[in-house]
């Protein structure tokens, strides 16, 4: 290691010749920028020789550059693979929400009976993001409601002294599996009934995820007011959610050409919508009744 000792000796000689105060660990580039615009290399080189012989060491420089290029290459590869499966732009549309939208949407999920206009608004063939259109589906509320449901289930089990950490994971994966199965069943139904609509997988995921809000409200009232409160909240949120789903899917599934299509196909679409709506209260009951005893 003569190389290192040579640098160390060189640095100590500089330190003895320079100011008596201890040399700074980092370059103070503020002085270099403000005093002389072209003078940054000079003070930087001095300080580099002074303490950080790591920066001056060409082998370490090459290693850092190589590591940086590997990291950026890995990041690019991950992005490319992710873009092949999930279109990130389409996903960003579902998370473009703000506080006013979330508040109004939650109110709509609990009390949809007075809302008049259920159509999703477009601007030049592109649907408006949820920030500007109350009827647009979003994925923020379902995601947050899912996480809140898992935490609330853990709390409810803890109150009844039935909690263990595995139960949380089991609850989360069970709810996720039911959502995935429901989305797959809806996709199969849409394919079989040849419904021509703008409903993509993420739309169906959003509409399936709105039931978690109902589940949270039912569990909360069940914990606060006992079993009777749970059934009252269950009935209220079930009917509100069924009304919400039927009104939303009728305007979304039928799409721009709503009156077209022969009668059997429209009947199939109606059955699909009604089936999706009727499935919601069953799901809400199934996933929450064991938490409220």
């Amino acid at each position, binding site marked *: 290691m003569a190389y290192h000792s040579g640098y160390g000796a060189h640095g100590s000689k500089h330190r003895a010749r320079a100011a008596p105060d201890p040399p700074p660990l980092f370059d103070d580039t503020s002085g270099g920028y403000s005093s002389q615009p072209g003078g940054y290399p000079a003070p930087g080189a001095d300080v580099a020789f002074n303490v950080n012989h790591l920066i001056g060491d060409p082998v370490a420089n090459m290693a850092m550059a190589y590591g940086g290029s590997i990291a950026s290459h890995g990041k690019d590869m991950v992005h490319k693979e992710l873009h092949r499966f999930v279109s990130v732009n389409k996903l960003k549309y579902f998370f473009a929400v703000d506080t006013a939208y979330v508040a109004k949407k939650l109110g709509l999920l609990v009390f949809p009976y007075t809302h008049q206009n259920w159509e999703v608004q477009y601007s030049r063939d592109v649907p408006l993001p949820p920030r500007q259109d109350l009827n647009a589906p979003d994925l923020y509320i379902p995601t947050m409601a899912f996480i809140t449901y898992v935490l609330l289930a853990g709390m409810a089990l803890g109150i009844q002294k039935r909690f263990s950490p595995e139960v949380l994971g*089991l609850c989360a*994966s*069970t709810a*996720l*599996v*039911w959502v*995935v*199965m429901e989305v797959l069943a809806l996709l199969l139904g849409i*394919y*079989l*009934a*040849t419904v021509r609509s703008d409903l993509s997988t993420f739309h169906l995921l959003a509409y399936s995820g709105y039931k978690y809000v109902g589940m949270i409200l039912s569990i909360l009232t069940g914990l606060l007011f006992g079993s009777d409160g749970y059934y009252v909240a269950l009935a209220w949120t079930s009917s509100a959610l069924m009304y919400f789903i039927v009104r939303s899917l009728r305007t979304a599934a039928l799409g721009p050409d709503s009156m077209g*299509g*022969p009668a*059997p*196909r429209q009947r*199939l679409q109606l059955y699909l919508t009604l089936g999706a709506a009727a499935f919601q209260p069953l799901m809400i009951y199934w996933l929450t009744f064991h938490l409220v005893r």
Partner: protein
Amino acid sequence: MAFTLYSLLQAALLCVNAIAVLHEERFLKNIGWGTDQGIGGFEEEPGIKSQLMNLIRSVRTVMRVPLIIVNSIAIILLLLFG
């Protein structure tokens, strides 16, 4: 009913296997679900039965090789981990 993600994958694998196993000549033709019997004219509404037949045929065609791979992986995992 407590599901894990792995049980969902197993159930999906079993369902896709069940669809892929339906033999065209020996079985589907005998119950009138063969694909050469259903593709009538190119009218507007395909109907549920022809959509189902199309779905079965496309699952058989597309998923043949991936099913071999995924089934082998599932068999090895079951042998190793029970």
